[in-house]
């Protein structure tokens, strides 16, 4: 402190300080030489200091002095800060109620923000866990939109040619994602189960820069036909199924009855796009034009350093055009796109959701700030005297503002620390709350240094934000005025106005979030209330995903059909089972096959891109009765529809509406391929089935074609068992019945239809619950704000109210007086909030289903909620005001 006082009180320019000091020294030296030792010292002293030395000495001293002063200023600043912080902490200890409310409010805001920051950071910014991930791109070849939502994939031969002919990629690879959930079954090592498999081209791991834990990954030489088939395993699979046995590398494992050599193990975080336990090489077929029509590969590539995606796009486009000309590819409007890997991995939906959540929590944080600012304002008026005294003692206005800001930042840092803890807790429970599949592989949700840094920045930022309000008040009002006023009345007037504005903004924010939450809730209700189209009670139907292994006993369609029929009989005999069926699609669930092209006999064949598409479902005859889908015309399948009888199909209402309008439906002939061989058959329409929802949130009814499994027995199917009671209770009997037929059958995804529907709407439920939870928090914050301001006003105006009562004001008068301004604040806040909601609603429309972004019912409900709750919050202070006893108030002064 003392060191700094010098520069404060006797501030002298540094140059003068140095010059004076040296001059004084020389003068004294000279005097001394003459007085005492004329001959000896004079010569010595004056010769030693030449002119050069003098200039040099002066420069040295000024240099050191300047550094000294700079350090002193910093030291002084830090000391003042530290004093302020200690003072602030003392103040907080003195007002534990205020402190804990403020810290908790801020902790809530910062905690929610840190968790959402972690989400947004992981989705938008955090580098993916691959080396030089910014050079990773996805290459797509989009054709004209006729194929619907399907994103175009690439033929594996094209992948090979692109990879060999391009000049812009370091490496390029394809990955094949099969439409169903199938995979090979492994023999040995525990019970049979489907093993998640991805088939890739040889450079797949090189593109991603994956280093194996053990062994190696694929090499281009592995792709040579005739080589021993090899397999790379994931770390997770290796640990859980193979007991992390290191000797497994180099050994052979039996998949689907065929041996494959394990060549390496790759770390768990490289499960790409969706979980995978093993990777095998995609067999590259012999060349030929027709081979290029089967497009199944997603293509990922690693750009050469410094190559822009646009250059890569031009490069690949040129190659693709050449190949198309060479092989007669006539797809319309073929286009190559090269997109950063991240935007492909994350997808627009997740990006929007994270931004939405960030927006929501930012509003919450604003409200927390507003509430704490309100608390501080109320205190500031109470502290006006203390500040005035400090000012009188010599503290400048900027010094006082700084001290107030230090106090609020200290408060906010405490809030930030607690908020960090809350955020970490939120992230810890997040995996149990997030719907499965929300976050793609490679995007992590973790509490790390980036989140901590965010908390720190958020804390300091909010501290300054909410501290600025009272500090600004102090800066604006001459402190002398405050002292002169004798009471805190002067500062109160403008403080009250400011608090009114803050509370109005809070009301607006709460209304906005209520409207948003309401829209999400209505969407959820629409989606959950979707009529599925089948009559069976969803909880009574047990489903499981079953894939017949590629074993000799299931190699022909007849063998597979025999299995399906035998299993149906066996399970039907189990206790508690009402009926059994097979299907390739679950209502509101997954489809193992997806949509297929077809042509109606008699219609002119359309161009490739305009061919009609319908959801292709292979079902057993009992399917329609098992899930109770009514046949509206004609008949369903029977045991007489066999492999050798006439090919038949059943279509649904949307199919008739779209493709057979005004024509005889029954007897119409439809030409389409057998899945997956592609052999064309012409099927006769023998019945029309009721529309069944494919997805809860489909915007138009999908056209559906059912074919009997006797006429297209594929080796992947869903088993549906309707129980006399709850479906879940018969799972064990069903499994036992299956085991009696083949104990090695891998079974997955055992769910009732209710569970299937729940999983289908999980993301809507998640969004609605987050949006509503924060809307409730916002409502609470706004109510706290309204209540706090009104209670404070009543306290401030106790005397005035006392006088009014004394001169005859009725209770009604007083209540009206007190509530008047609060009602105006609430009303204007509500209007602003509804206006904002109407403005911002449009940006929500991508998340909404079955409800307009400006929904009168939702908005009206939000208004009713805010008016009702604020009225309740105001009633207490208003009642207090009405009960003021004038006699007591006068006695107090």
């Amino acid at each position: 402190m003392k060191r700094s006082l010098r520069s404060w009180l006797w501030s002298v320019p540094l140059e003068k300080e140095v010059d004076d000091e040296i001059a004084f020294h020389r003068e004294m030296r000279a005097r001394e030489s003459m007085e005492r030792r004329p001959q000896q010292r004079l010569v010595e002293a004056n010769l030693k200091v030449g002119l050069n030395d003098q200039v040099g000495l002066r420069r040295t001293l000024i240099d050191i002095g300047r550094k000294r002063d700079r350090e002193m200023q910093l030291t002084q600043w830090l000391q003042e800060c530290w004093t302020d912080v200690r003072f602030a902490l003392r103040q907080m200890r003195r007002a534990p109620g205020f402190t804990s409310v403020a810290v908790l409010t801020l902790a809530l805001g910062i905690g929610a923000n840190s968790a959402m920051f972690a989400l947004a950071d992981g989705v938008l910014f955090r580098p993916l866990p691959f080396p030089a991930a910014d050079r990773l791109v996805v290459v797509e070849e989009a054709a004209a939109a006729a194929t619907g939502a399907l994103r175009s994939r690439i033929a594996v031969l094209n992948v090979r040619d692109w990879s060999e002919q391009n000049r812009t990629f370091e490496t390029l690879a394809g990955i094949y994602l099969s439409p169903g959930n199938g995979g090979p079954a492994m023999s040995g090592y525990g019970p049979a189960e489907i093993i998640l498999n991805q088939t890739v081209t040889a450079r797949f791991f090189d593109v991603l820069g994956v280093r194996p834990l053990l062994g190696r990954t694929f090499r281009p030489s592995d792709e040579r036909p005739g080589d021993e088939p090899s397999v790379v395993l994931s770390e997770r699979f290796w640990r859980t199924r193979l007991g992390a046995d290191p000797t497994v590398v180099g050994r052979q494992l039996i998949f689907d009855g065929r041996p494959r050599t394990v060549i390496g193990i790759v770390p768990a975080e490289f499960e790409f796009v969706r979980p995978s336990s093993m990777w095998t090489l995609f067999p590259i077929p012999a060349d030929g034009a027709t081979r290029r029509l089967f497009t199944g590969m997603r293509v990922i590539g690693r750009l050469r350093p410094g190559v822009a995606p646009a250059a890569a796009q031009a490069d690949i486009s040129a190659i693709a055009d050449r190949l198309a000309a060479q092989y007669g590819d006539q797809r319309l409007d073929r286009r190559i796109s090269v997109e950063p890997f991240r935007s492909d991995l994350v997808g627009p939906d997740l990006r929007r959701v994270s931004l939405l959540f960030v927006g929501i929590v930012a509003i919450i944080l604003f409200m927390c700030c507003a509430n704490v600012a309100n608390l501080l304002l109320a205190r500031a008026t109470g502290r006006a005297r203390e500040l005035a005294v400090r000012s009188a003692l010599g503290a400048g206005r900027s010094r006082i503002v700084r001290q107030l800001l230090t106090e609020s930042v200290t408060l906010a840092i405490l809030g930030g620390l607690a908020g960090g803890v809350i955020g970490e807790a939120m992230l810890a429970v997040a995996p149990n709350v997030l719907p499965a599949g929300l976050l793609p592989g490679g995007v992590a949700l973790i509490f790390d240094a980036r989140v901590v840094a965010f908390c720190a920045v958020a804390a300091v930022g909010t501290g300054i934000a909410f501290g600025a309000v009272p500090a600004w008040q102090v800066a604006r009002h001459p402190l002398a005025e405050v002292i002169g006023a004798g009471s805190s009345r002067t500062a109160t007037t403008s403080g009250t106005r400011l608090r009114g504005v803050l509370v109005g903004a809070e009301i607006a924010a709460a209304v906005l979030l209520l409207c948003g939450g309401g829209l999400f809730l209505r969407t959820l209700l629409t989606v959950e209330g979707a009529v599925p189209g089948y009559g069976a009670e969803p909880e009574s139907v047990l489903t499981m995903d079953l894939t017949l292994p590629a074993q000799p006993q299931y190699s022909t369609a007849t063998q597979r059909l025999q299995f399906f029929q035998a299993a149906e009989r066996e399970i039907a005999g189990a206790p508690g089972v009402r009926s059994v069926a097979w299907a390739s699609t679950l209502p509101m669930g997954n489809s193992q096959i997806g949509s297929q092209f077809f042509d109606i006999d008699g219609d002119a064949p359309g161009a490739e891109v305009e061919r009609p598409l319908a959801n292709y479902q292979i079902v057993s005859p009992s399917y329609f009765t098992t899930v109770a889908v009514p046949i509206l015309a004609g008949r369903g399948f029977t045991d007489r529809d066999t492999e050798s009888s006439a090919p038949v199909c059943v279509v649904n209402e949307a199919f008739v509406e779209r493709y057979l309008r005004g024509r005889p439906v029954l007897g119409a002939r439809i030409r389409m391929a057998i899945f997956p061989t592609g052999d064309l058959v012409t099927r006769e329409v023998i019945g029309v089935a009721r529309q069944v929802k494919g997805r809860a949130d489909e915007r138009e009814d999908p056209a559906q074609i059912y074919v009997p499994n006797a006429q297209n027995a594929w080796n992947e199917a869903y088993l549906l068992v309707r129980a006399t009671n709850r479906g879940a209770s018969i799972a064990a009997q069903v499994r036992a019945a299956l085991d009696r037929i083949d104990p090695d059958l891998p079974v997955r995804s055992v769910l009732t239809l209710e569970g299937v529907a729940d999983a289908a709407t999980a993301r809507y439920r998640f969004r609605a619950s987050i949006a509503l939870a924060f809307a409730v928090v916002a409502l609470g914050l706004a109510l706290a704000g309204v209540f706090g301001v009104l209670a404070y006003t009543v306290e401030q105006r106790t005397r005035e109210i006392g006088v009014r009562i004394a001169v005859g004001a009725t209770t009604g008068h007083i209540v009206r007086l007190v509530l008047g301004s609060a009602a105006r604040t609430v009303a204007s806040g509500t209007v602003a909030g509804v206006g904002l909601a109407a403005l911002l609603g449009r940006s929500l429309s991508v998340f909404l289903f079955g409800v307009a972004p400006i929904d009168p019912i939702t908005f009206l409900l939000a208004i009713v909620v805010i008016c009702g709750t604020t009225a309740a919050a105001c009633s207490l202070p208003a009642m207090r005001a009405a009960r003021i006893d004038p006699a007591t108030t006068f006695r107090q002064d």
Partner: protein
Amino acid sequence: MADKTPNTLLHGSLDALILKTVAAGPRHGYAIARFIEEASGETVVVEEGSLYPALYRMERRGWLEAEWGESELGRRVKMYRLTRAGRAQLAAETAAWRQFSAGVSRILLAQ
């Protein structure tokens, strides 16, 4: 070594002498120089070219602090005062010197 004058101070010992001098009470720069010269029986000459940089450096490091005082002739001059950190530094340098000189003596004065 032979041509080194006995007046030259060993490196670093000027700091210690200044600290020791100021420990007795605040003094201005010239007074510090004179005190050292007189107390050493005029065997040590303190030049301004080394004295003032040392003073400024020690002020920057917080061993000394400056204040305005009055000289014997009634002029306003800058006085140096020892701080708590300076006192600790003096103790440390004294101890180091004791050790050093004892070591050197043991060799040079060995019988």
